[in-house]
């Protein structure tokens, strides 16, 4: 089966068997290893990527379902100037510890902030209910969201 889709803006064409997950295709076929596998059952959110702007758990998302779609992964966030405002806010707030869940959090929050540029705390926490971080206890991740919103408002 042939899969044609765009990943971080680049057109890609792959020959697949059909049963592959989007996560495996990204990691194994496209060498985009920034997206992580934590549980393979859609529970931890470490594998979150965007499919046409919507956050999905790529570990339980059939790659063939991404036919003609636009995929965004953590590798697509930074700009030519360096980290984007959300990534920067994570760095400055201490929202990163071990970093294994971080790509999933960044993609989930990217989807949230695209839809709601000024989410309140409840919206942020609801959006993060499918992403597990074992290191931070979440406070500095939530702070990073607030910092990012402030920064984007100034810009």
């Amino acid at each position, binding site marked *: 089966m042939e899969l044609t889709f765009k990943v971080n803006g680049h057109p890609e064409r792959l020959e697949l068997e059909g049963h592959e997950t989007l996560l495996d295709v990204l990691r194994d076929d496209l060498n985009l290893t920034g*997206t992580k596998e934590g549980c393979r059952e859609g*529970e931890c959110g470490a594998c979150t990527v965007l499919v046409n702007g919507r956050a999905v758990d790529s570990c339980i998302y059939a790659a063939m379902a991404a036919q003609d779609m636009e995929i965004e992964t953590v590798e697509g966030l930074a700009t030519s100037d360096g980290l984007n405002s959300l990534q920067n806010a994570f760095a400055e707030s*201490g929202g990163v510890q071990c970093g294994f869940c971080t790509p999933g959090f960044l993609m989930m929050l990217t989807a949230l902030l695209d839809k709601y540029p000024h989410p309140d705390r409840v919206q942020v926490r609801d959006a993060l209910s499918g992403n597990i971080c074992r290191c931070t206890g*979440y406070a500095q991740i939530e702070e990073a969201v607030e910092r990012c919103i402030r920064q984007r408002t100034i810009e």
Partner: protein
Amino acid sequence: MSLLGENLVRTDAVGKLTGEARYTVDYDGKDLLHGSLLRSPVPAGLIKAIDTTVAESLPGVRCVITAKDAPDARAGWVLREQALFARKQVRFEGEVIAAVAADTPEQAREAVAAIILDLAETQAVGDMETALAENAPLVHPEWKSYQPVSGEDYPRHGNIASELMADDDAVDVAFENADLIVEDEFTSNRQYQAYIEPKSAVGIYRDGRYTIHTGHQYPFNVRDRVAQYLDVRPSQVRVIGHSIGGGFGGKLDTGLEPYAAILSKFSGGRPVKIVNNRTEDILTCPSRENAVIKMRSALDKQGNLLGRELICHMDNGAYSGEMAFMPSVIFHLAGSVYKVGNIRVIARLVYTNTAPTGAMRGVSGVYFCAFQERHMDHIADELGVDRREYRLRNLVGNGDTLLSGQVLDDADLLRKGFEKMEEAAPWSQLNDNKKPWHGIGICAGTWITNSMPGSVQLILNEDGTVTVVTAATDNGSGAVSMGITQIVAEHFGLPADDIVVTMPDTDVAAYDGGSQGSRTTHIVGRAAGIAADELKGMIFDVASGMLEAGRDDLELVNGQVGVVGYPDSRISLGDIAMTATWTRGPLSASGSYTTAPVPYNPGCASGMLFPFFPTPTYHVHLAEVEVNPVTGNVRVVRYIVVQEVGRVINPAGVRGQIQGAVAQGIGHALYESLRIRDSRYLERSLEAYRLPLAVDMPEVEIITMEHPHALGPFGAKGVGEPAIILAPATVACAVSDAIGRPFNSIPITPEDVLEAIVGKEKQL
């Protein structure tokens, strides 16, 4: 400008935020093979035959190995009791029986499924009560033959893997003379470290040596354990560290490393990668042990503690790992917070046919504190004394001693902690304004900074930057990416960007005791300071010649050396390094450190005694919870930590450690539990194992007490663990207060809460 106390961004942040950071699972290569393991499907059994012929004939399979292919050796942290592959007996569900390497992960898994295993299930010893019963079957019938790594002389017998006894006859007298005796029994379940990165490892056998890639908390422990399993000298094993996707004590001993190593040897030296799926990871991870503690206190009429008896049974699972030391933790903690009079401690580590337990963050101390604090609340209630007041009456202070005789020099910090807490949250005001179904807990605790050795080599590069060569690992805590980086930068007046810290490599750096016990910033930071002082001496020697000035007239400011009082005289560290390299040779210096042992009474206990409680820190926590009487859910609405830290190097880092530790503590108190039925875990996925989410967490209010330690780097002590030590205790006390019923078992689930509420209503 000083970098101490500044929120410098961790040096690995950019890599982790862009996806560039390389974890072991991301290791790739053209010749990479994939490994998979056949694990025991039963908790106890006898292997009659293993037929690998079909598996070996499958496409892509490079090797299938079993016990007959491995050295006849046993390995272990304290007791050498575990073979690489089960030869005859299997002792827990998940124990490795065979290993396969193949071209793809799917082929490896298919080959594992094709191994024909003839295995007779035997009667499993599923819990401690069964294990300790008379004539119980032995988990290790051959236990006497096991060789202890640390000497022959510690008590173990049958299903008791290790034991510590501190028996004071005066305890019996105290109970005879008591006006009041308060007695409790507490239980706690297992807690899974649940790092988001499941374990993985890559092994390569080349030129007669094993190279292992692994994101591990303790690379030198991997080196030593792999050497034991494969029966080679430790120097024949090289361990290279990668980014660690969380550890929390679960990545302190070997997991997949020796299997990846031996598979590579049997595959012509091609690299072999093995990755746990989440279920394998849960089944085999050395989780925090379940435990039962009986605690009994003798009191006089005034409520003074005359004596205490404490019997602690800790579930070791099938192999002991680091656990053999842990009865000692109970012993030291028993006298570390309150004056408890004469005391008897019996702590036993018990073998069962369950997954081996291990050291999760705050080893054994987490449930000990929960039980001690609930017991203190119980005593205060019996006496009709306010819970906070009763604690203050009995706190240890400066000059008091632990049960070992070790003197606590600065234990007055406990009292100061209560004062700080009172300023933040006045106790009587909180109690007076308490809403229905709300409860408050206040607890105190003492914890260690692990003393294990560490080492640093500093190299002054010709561009004026400093390379830090160390095997210290950053498990995510920031101890290296913030702590060590900032400490070295501060010594040379350099920006953090000018400090490069190597990844761990046991071929390159000297021994390091791993990221455990809150030790890295304190121990390795101190080693870095020693190296920095020596390197600075060399720098001044060279600069003295370049500036034609006396050595004592020189100063190092902002990465430049100049003559005091002559600002124009400054030369850069880069120029000094360049000059040195071509005149006397490159500049580098090393520093090593381990906490010096403190005096103690060798007769204080018999058994597995870890002789001292290094570099203590002192803490007070307060929690307010809200109980939903309809659903049984508990919400932590307010949480305050007063933590003694020595010195804050990076406030964002300290905050991250405290908030994260409290989250894990709340998880242990309210949600997380690996339950065992018929010697097997009920929870086998992250769907079943309930972890704290963002919606569950309060923003922890953090008050740090700075009390610089004479030997710590700029005064810093350990920070990573203390906040988890008291979190389950404080939550359990608050829930008990909210409902007016004692909760002496953790976790406290919604079912437990509803049962308590119904029980109370029936009583009324």
